[in-house]
């Protein structure tokens, strides 16, 4: 199996350029919360909280009520503090979540790919 270091050393020019583009995209992620706020757009369709469903249809479906909070994610909604209403702070949390999530995804995918592909050339 290749170590992370070897993979990095084997990276070609195009791959390095893509990494830089991905990093830049990470820095732009706050657009993903600023733009919806600016255009007064709410939740994605079908991704409402139980309370919002109550407002929409007049009741909370029993199963939804039971399972909605089944799992507590460590960083829910890409924010470390959802009570902080400052858009600047939320943008910062979102950006950090983006970098964290993208890095974890990148590393996990590298490891999985190395485990799957052992026909190294």
């Amino acid at each position, binding site marked *: 199996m290749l170590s992370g270091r070897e993979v990095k050393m084997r990276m070609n020019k195009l791959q390095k350029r893509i990494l830089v583009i991905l990093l830049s995209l990470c820095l732009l992620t706050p657009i993903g919360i600023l733009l919806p706020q600016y255009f007064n757009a709410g939740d994605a369709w079908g991704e409402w909280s139980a309370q919002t469903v109550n407002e929409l249809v007049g009741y909370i479906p029993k199963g*939804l009520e039971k399972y909605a909070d089944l799992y507590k994610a460590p960083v829910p909604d890409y924010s470390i503090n959802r009570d902080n209403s400052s858009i600047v702070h939320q943008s910062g949390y979102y950006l950090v979540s983006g970098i964290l999530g993208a890095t974890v995804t990148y590393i996990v995918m590298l490891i999985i790919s190395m485990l799957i592909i052992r026909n190294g050339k």
Partner: protein
Amino acid sequence: MHIPDGYLSPQTYIPLFGVFAAAVTVAVKKVKKEVSARDIPYLGMAAAFSFIIMMFNLPIPGGTTGHAVGSAVIAILFGPWAAVVAVSVAIIIQALIFGDGGITAIGANCFNMAVCMPFAAYYLFRLFSYGSAKKSRVFFAAFIAGYLSLVLAAILTGIEFGIQPLIASSVDGKALYCPYDLKIAVPAMAIEHLLLFGIVEGVITAIIVKYFLKNEPGLIYAFRKGGKNENE
């Protein structure tokens, strides 16, 4: 398009977990066969790209939000099976770390965005590019592939939402899970993706595929596999 916990009945999410698991099993075998070790960094970047692009929530002014997924471009560049693995990793990390998409809905969300979408995109691209490596044709085919495959994933999501009132309602007629039926859920999901999010997926797909066509055409899976190059 990330279905949260509590919106799908077990009769829906359990079978979709089964289908997803079967798809991953095949995907692992195919990736082992098709992808060479030197392309491993690309797969890591593809998964990270999918994760990042899904964070760019775009608004329908005064309405809902949505986003591109990145499955289409990954399927064209690295093959649909590699896309299955890469986008699944992104979706599972979104659910586990950020609570974006439910734990019970991982199978369903991966089925829509990481299994059906890349395959739809790949075959749409093959169909519309028709083996041609002409820039304008490739750009057009990649756009159509991204656009329609995201709309398809949205419609599948709408169907999964919409069948819930039929599957599970209490005696007083109230839904147990997603309260909207097919007549509402499918058009809602389809229209917003037809109008905006699908176009964004299409443009992103077209730009990136064109970029690879210019810089590293030999890498593009859709051309290597049964495309123009195979006949040469």
